[in-house]
Structure formats: structure tokens, C-alpha cells
């Protein structure tokens, strides 16, 4: 067993990407994700990779587009305002079926917001974010260890289905330190087969073109529909979630990332006071674990969505359950973190008063 090391979430994300075969990183500084490029700047040269601090987020995402087109495992990272700038490039990568990997360490928004951790980019991450019809594979870690292991899964899915992938995390998980142990296999990118779409030196093979458009009448529809088939495969095969104390739960908290960490404390508090509470944590935000929620709703009739945003993931829960159970919301927008006690009091109110909604903003 490897020795445990105390690391920041951002550092673990960078190290996890390198171990998963990342050999090109381009990015532009922004708090609270600066440890990612800082780490990459010295770590990538050690493994024969390349690090570029670009002049803007826009150029970083386009550098990554170019690197991915050659079949290289590459990465860019940023935080909320910087992610908005990258959206055009992400849409182009989705249109060109490129397996880019993105880290978003969310901070307060909208606009420049602040530099504290937040979860306000859920819609942006799971709904595409850029223009056009597309999906991004999105994973939400809730610990430093998961920050280190999720890049491996992101590259695997990205290359298997040719889709942009993302780790959606927040400033708290990015900045916190925890013991981490890297358990995912170390990938030697040189040992990976060259993808049959990657451009590069042409050894007398058929021409390959990486592009996000087809101007011939009717052809774009075919291109998009072919992509939709892969989306359906991902929805069928790549959903991930975690459940805690759900066996006898009468109320299920649904939360991801930092909100899920606080919710564990809230759940313990509630259990001590006799409320049968469990936690359902979506790990993939797209594909969202709809089917499992429907299954749970046969037994659990009250769901409480806890999120550090105005109420974004709550819509996915409502769409999944489609009226099968009550859906409540504990929202904490404005880059503020709910306390376990606040979440417990919401649950207590739901049980006692049947409160439909609770907004923490006062």
C-alpha cells in the first residue's frame, strides 16, 4: 500500500491527471484553482509533458483543442469566471468529438463574484454551457482522494466515447488538505494505441480531419445523431453515485461535493435526534443518476436537495422523480456554506411542518 500523503485538493487533481496520462496542460491563473497550473508547471516536465501558461482562458482551451486533436491526453483548468470564457472552445471540442479534460474549481458568481467556494456552475457544466446541442461528462468529487482518482475515469470515458470530460469541484475541496492515496493505475501514454481519428504525421494512411462542422445539407443532423448514440451509451453505462444510510431512510438528502460533506454531518446529527435520514450523492452529474432515484422513490417519499447555489441540481432531481416524491430544497447561494445544523433544522421542519421549501438566504 502506498504511503498516504497530505495534499491539497487542487494538487491531487493535477497529480491524478498526470498519473492518468496527461502530458499537456494549458491554463490561465485564477483563484481558487491556482495550485493546479502551479503543480503542472513543474510536474509535467518531469514526465516529458508540456505546460503552457497561456495569455488567456480562450487561448488555453483552444490549445487543449489542438492537443486533443492529436490524440494526446490533455487538460485545462479554471474557476467559474474563467470557465465562462472557455465555453466557446468546449462547444467546439464537443462538436469535433475531442476528448479534452477540464477542471472547474467553482467560486462565487455571477460575474466576478468572489473567490470562496460555490456550486453555481452546475447548470453551465451539465447543460453544455456553450452553444449547440452537446453533453459533457461531469464528475463531482467530495474529497481530496476523489480529486486524485477522478481524472483517470474522465480520460477513460472521454477517449472511449470521444466526449469532453470535466471534474466539477469547488474552492473548498480545491483548497483543503487531506491524506491522499493514489490507487488508480498509472497510465503510460506511450503505451496507449493511437486513436483512429487523431491527426499528426501521416504515414500514408487515409486522411483524417478534425472539425466541428458540416455545411452540406442534412449532414450536420447525421453527425449530431451519431453523437447522440454515444450519449445514450454513456447514460446506460457510466452513471456513478454513492449512498449512505439509505437502507431505512425516510428522508434522502441529495447533495454533491462540499454540500455532500456537510450533509453527512447533518445526517449524523439528524440520526442522533431520531430522524431516519440517508444521503444520496450523485458522483456523475451528467449522466445524472435518474434511474436510481426513481427506484429509491418507491420507498423514500421525501427528498431534500442541498446545494451551494440558488437551486440548480434540484431541477435534475425533480425531472428524475417526475412527481413520484416530495422534493425540497436547502439552497445556499452567494459562495456561502451551509452548516450541518442549518440542514438538520430544514429536515426537522420538513418532518414537522411539511415545509415545502427553505431558502437559507436571509
Amino acid at each position, binding site marked *: 500500500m502506498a504511503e498516504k500523503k497530505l495534499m491539497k485538493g487542487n494538487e491531487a487533481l493535477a497529480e491524478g491527471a498526470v498519473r492518468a496520462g496527461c502530458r499537456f496542460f494549458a491554463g490561465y491563473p485564477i*483563484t481558487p484553482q491556482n495550485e493546479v497550473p502551479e503543480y503542472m508547471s513543474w510536474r509535467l516536465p518531469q514526465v516529458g509533458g508540456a505546460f503552457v501558461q497561456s495569455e488567456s482562458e480562450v487561448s488555453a482551451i483552444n490549445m487543449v483543442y489542438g492537443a486533443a486533436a492529436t490524440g494526446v491526453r490533455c487538460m485545462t483548468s479554471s474557476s467559474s469566471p474563467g470557465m465562462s470564457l472557455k465555453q466557446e472552445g468546449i462547444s467546439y471540442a464537443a462538436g469535433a468529438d475531442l476528448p479534452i479534460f477540464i477542471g472547474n474549481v467553482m467560486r462565487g458568481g455571477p460575474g466576478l463574484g468572489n473567490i470562496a467556494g460555490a456550486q453555481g456552475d452546475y447548470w453551465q457544466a451539465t447543460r453544455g454551457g456553450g452553444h449547440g446541442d452537446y453533453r459533457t461528462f461531469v464528475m463531482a468529487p467530495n474529497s481530496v482522494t476523489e480529486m486524485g482518482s477522478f481524472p483517470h475515469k474522465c480520460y477513460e470515458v472521454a477517449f472511449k466515447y470521444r466526449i469532453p470530460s470535466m471534474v466539477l469541484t469547488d474552492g473548498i475541496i480545491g483548497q483543503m488538505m487531506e*491524506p491522499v492515496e493514489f490507487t488508480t493505475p498509472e497510465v503510460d501514454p506511450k503505451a496507449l494505441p493511437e486513436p483512429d481519428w487523431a491527426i499528426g504525421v501521416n504515414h500514408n494512411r487515409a486522411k483524417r480531419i478534425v472539425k466541428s462542422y458540416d455545411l452540406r445539407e442534412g449532414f450536420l443532423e447525421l453527425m449530431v445523431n451519431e453523437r447522440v448514440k454515444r450519449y445514450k451509451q454513456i447514460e446506460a453505462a457510466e452513471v456513478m453515485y454513492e449512498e449512505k444510510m439509505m437502507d431505512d431512510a425516510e428522508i434522502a438528502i441529495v447533495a454533491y461535493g462540499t454540500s455532500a*460533506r456537510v450533509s453527512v454531518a447533518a445526517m449524523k446529527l439528524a440520526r442522533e435526534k431520531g430522524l431516519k435520514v440517508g444521503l444520496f450523492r450523485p458522483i456523475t452529474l451528467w449522466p445524472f443518476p435518474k434511474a436510481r432515484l426513481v427506484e429509491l422513490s418507491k420507498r423514500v417519499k421525501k427528498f431534500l436537495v442541498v446545494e451551494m447555489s440558488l437551486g440548480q441540481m434540484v431541477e435534475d432531481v425533480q425531472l428524475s422523480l417526475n412527481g413520484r416524491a416530495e422534493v425540497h430544497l436547502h439552497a445556499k447561494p452567494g459562495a456561502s456554506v451551509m452548516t450541518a445544523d442549518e440542514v438538520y433544522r430544514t429536515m426537522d421542519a420538513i418532518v414537522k411542518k411539511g415545509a415545502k421549501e427553505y431558502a437559507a438566504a436571509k
Partner: protein
Amino acid sequence: MYQGIRISGFGGQGVISAGVLLAQAGMMEGKEVSFFPAYGAEMRGGTANCSVVVASEEVSTPIVSTPDTAIVLNEPSLAKFEPMVKPGGLLIVNSSLVNSKATRTDIKVLYVPCNAIAGELGNAKVMNMVAIGAFAAATGAISIDAVARALPKVYKKLKPDVIELNVKALKRGAEIKLN
């Protein structure tokens, strides 16, 4: 055992590095740990604080909102963190720099002249270790030995004699007992 700790003081007093050190020491003792820094517009001379959890079970939230122990190294930190301490919890006050007394009666308060002791040892920089030593002895959440072993892991560039001075500061802090 679940110890949520908040450490607060001036930037430059070693608030953040003391927090990392506690987490490192806890990990080396086989405990579950987390460390979370306030990473706003902190600067030397301004205020800085961090959350540390050392526990025998899984750490839920890394942000300690009701600390079992608060360690306040400067005056503004006392006003901010005294009200947050869990009833029955512990407040460690750097009495060298904090002139006010704690007002709560439902918590234990330990006054430690961190700067004075560090001055006696000949290096003002080890004042944070005096506070950590007092914390370790008062709570038993972590052993002085583990903190000492964690020192070279966290401060990789420190020379052996400086490490030794830090260990001395830990031990001096540990001698200060609750009344």
C-alpha cells in the same frame, strides 16, 4: 474522538503552517484529518485562520463552524472565535498579545504567553509551536511526539537545530496546564 479546531491570528504568526502541521501529525498517528485555510485577501499583518479536524472517524465537513478548540493568537481573533466555541470546548489564548479576557463561562480557557515563551527560547517564530504544544497536552487529541515527527515533513527546509528549537517550544507549551 472528533476534534474540530480553529486557529486564528495575524498573517505571519504561523497560523496556516501550524494547521498543516496538526493535520500531518494526525495523519502520521493514523487518524482521519482535514485542513482548510481561509484563502481570502490574507496578507502579512492582516488576519488569517484555518480549520483542522483530527478524528478517529471519517471527517464530515472540513469547515469547522463550531470548534471543539479555538486557538487565538491575536486580539481580533478572540472577539471573532470565542463565541463560536462549542459549549464545554476549549479556548487557547495567546496572553502575550491578547489583553482581553474571555467572557464565556461555559468553556475552558487556557492562557498561554506564547510570545514570551518563544522569546525565552530565543526565537520569536516558534510562538505558534508553544500554542500547539498547549493544545496537544490539554486535549490529548494528538501527541507531542507525533507533532515533533511531523515537523520535518511539513517544514522541509528547516535545519535540525531549528527543528529542535520547535520541539522545545512544543514541550514548553505542553507544560501549561488548565487550572
